[in-house]
């Protein structure tokens, strides 16, 4: 009996030891559920083979990604060892202690932030912004741009009709005014027996959609988050005359030229509208572009890619997307997580990342002479990344975002009030938040 008890205890002890050891040899990476995440699963197989560490993945669809993952971080959860969190989370990640500061690790492993595209370092890694305090490694570069139906634009009868009506060629628009003309031209038109529409734009209310879309336009119309000389001073910058004109433009584009029913649309709805041949142009993040190239309806040269057009004064900016990869401070596997980041930062891994559909942020990859010609959208991606701006990355970003979602949706989709009232209201909302934070 005693021998049996001893054997059972030993077996149990071995099991527990085995489990602990297995946990040490496993990493969980958390990200959004989208195409690049699938590519990362494939890419990470090389890491598994080299390190012997098993990779697990926790992917959450975009509409719930922030809710789910911020809850995880705020509760000090240990689900994720590595987090590819949105760029706007960096302030909260750093100040609330969710992320591990990576400066010492970068120094010890000769990982230089100079090797990455500057906009991605500022956008994804630095907090406070423009200081050498790094909380993540730029993992996936992304930016809002436009796709358009090159095959429709090239149809002689449409090109001729457009030229007659507008006095210029039907080519990719360079300004927002041109973009709206083209959208109006296509709106309600019959093409191949189907009614098509001008453009799909972001209008989603629940998470961040309409803010990403509206900001993508407002920047080029003169919107600024704050006084460059006085932080958090927003009066006359958020609600400047240019910003008001930009928001009015966004509403007019929504009213005149979007398909019926796209009043709560974000990335997924935009992809569907474009792939199904409903729209001539589509605003969406660059991550969607590789998918269009291989799509039977819009791939194979039918799609053109376009940097965000310029505003009325010739200014041209685009909304930054993308994420950095961080080590979660609550993880018990930080050593292994850092090992993953070290592996991921290698130029050959980054090169493979790009070929698999991941938008690398490493300069050695994107500045390679062959990069621009490597994909039809590569040059547009590069040009877009050079003009990016991002939303607040403050620890209170979620509150600030929630306010802009409400103000923009109220005006653009529901048609309540004026653009001036919406942006004045936004200044008031954001002021309260910064006052609560003790920053004003």
């Amino acid at each position, binding site marked *: 009996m005693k021998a049996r008890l001893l054997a059972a205890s030993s077996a149990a002890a071995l099991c527990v030891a085995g489990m602990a050891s297995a946990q040490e040899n496993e990493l969980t990476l958390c990200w959004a559920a989208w195409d690049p995440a699938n590519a990362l699963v494939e890419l990470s197989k090389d890491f598994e083979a080299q390190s012997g560490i098993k990779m697990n993945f926790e992917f959450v669809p975009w509409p719930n990604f*922030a809710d789910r993952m911020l809850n995880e971080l705020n509760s000090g959860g240990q689900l994720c060892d590595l987090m590819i969190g949105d760029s706007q989370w960096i302030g909260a990640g750093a100040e*609330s202690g969710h992320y591990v500061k990576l400066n010492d690790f970068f120094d010890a492993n000769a990982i230089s932030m100079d090797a990455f595209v500057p906009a991605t370092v500022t956008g994804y890694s630095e907090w406070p912004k423009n200081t050498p305090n790094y909380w993540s490694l730029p993992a996936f570069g992304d930016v809002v741009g436009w796709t358009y139906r090159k095959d429709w634009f090239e149809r002689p009868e449409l090109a001729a009709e457009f030229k007659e009506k507008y006095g210029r060629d039907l080519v990719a628009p360079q300004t927002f005014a041109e973009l709206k003309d083209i959208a109006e031209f296509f709106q309600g038109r019959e093409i191949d027996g189907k009614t098509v529409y001008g453009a799909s734009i972001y209008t*989603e209310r*629940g998470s961040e959609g309409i803010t990403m879309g509206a900001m993508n336009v407002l920047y080029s119309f003169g919107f600024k988050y704050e006084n460059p000389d006085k932080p958090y001073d927003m009066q006359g910058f958020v609600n400047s005359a240019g910003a008001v004109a930009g928001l009015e433009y966004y509403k007019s584009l929504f009213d005149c030229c979007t398909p*019926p029913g796209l009043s*709560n649309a974000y990335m997924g709805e935009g992809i569907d509208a474009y792939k199904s041949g*409903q729209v001539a142009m589509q605003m969406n993040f660059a991550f969607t572009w590789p998918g269009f190239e291989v799509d039977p309806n819009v791939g194979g040269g039918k799609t053109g890619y376009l940097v965000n057009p310029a505003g009325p004064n010739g200014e041209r900016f685009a909304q930054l997307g993308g994420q950095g990869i961080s080590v979660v401070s609550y993880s018990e596997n930080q050593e292994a997580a850092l090992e993953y980041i070290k592996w991921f930062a290698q130029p050959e891994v980054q090169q493979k990342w790009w070929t698999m559909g991941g938008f690398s942020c490493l300069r050695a990859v994107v500045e390679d002479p062959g990069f621009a010609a490597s994909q039809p959208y590569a040059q547009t991606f590069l040009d877009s990344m050079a003009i990016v701006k991002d939303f607040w990355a403050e620890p209170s970003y979620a*509150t600030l975002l929630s306010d802009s979602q409400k103000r923009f949706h109220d005006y653009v989709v529901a*048609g*309540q009030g004026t653009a001036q009232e919406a942006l004045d209201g936004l200044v008031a909302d954001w002021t309260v938040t910064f006052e609560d934070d003790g920053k004003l």
Partner: protein
Amino acid sequence: MQDTPPATPADRLARATPPTLARKVRGLSDRSIAWIFVAPTILLLLAINIFPLIWTIRLSFTNFRANRPNEPLEWVGLRNYERILTDPDVWQTMQATAHFLFWTLFFQVLLGFALAWLINRKFRGNDLMTTLIVLPMMLSPAVVGNFWTFLYQPQIGLINYAVEFVTGIPASSFTMLGSVSLAPWAIVIVDTWMWTPFVMLICLAGLRSIPDYIYEAAEIDRASKWRQFWTMTVPMVLPFLMLAVLFRGIENFKMFDLVVLLTGGGPGDTTLLSSIELKREAFEKWRTGYSSAYAIILFVTVFGLASIYVKALNKVKER
């Protein structure tokens, strides 16, 4: 000699109980034993209901943010309550909630009672019909929200095509979920479709509890069908109907899932119900103190209204 009856399991258990323990149990009063049985439930209730409520009340007077637990807690007095009650946006969500609540209850009571009255007749296929009618309430709100989103889709949705067929208005010329004037009605329609069967079932229980002899007596007294309906059927079903209204009222006051899936609170804030706004404040903006105050206000509102209603219900029952 009398035969000894076979020992029951209770007898065996009694014999197996040590005399000291038996004496101790025998020493307990009925009241004590009742407390021993009830205590675990009371403790559980205290832990999962009363304590969180008290904790929420406490938080509602602070600036606490759950995503910044290390920041010093500041006592803000009634500031959160003042902010909420003077915020026009909050009143707008209250209005949206009231609109949703009133019209869903109105239609569900009307249709639920009508269906119950019809189903109560004896006809062939009665059981099958009842099963088919109650199907919607058996579905998950997530499923209902998603497929009604497709039904309302202006380009491919059946609803718009049905409207076009009946009225001639082009299907893609209007959008139920994206229109400020139509969206509040769109969510009322879906909730009514889903939950009318529930009201119907309760009304049916009420109708079936009315004894036949009352109607037979009325027939003998030559009371018309109309008079029977208003003076017998309606008063006797009324307590059941009021109970259904209470259940649906409380449920719809905290409606969240269905509306989030259908409209996300939009367009603008047109369908932003109180519970959706509360979730945003609590788990998106992380204003825990503020949202605690908001939750307390909603709780007091529901509790107050429900208490008044229950008193009315009891009076109706006593009649």
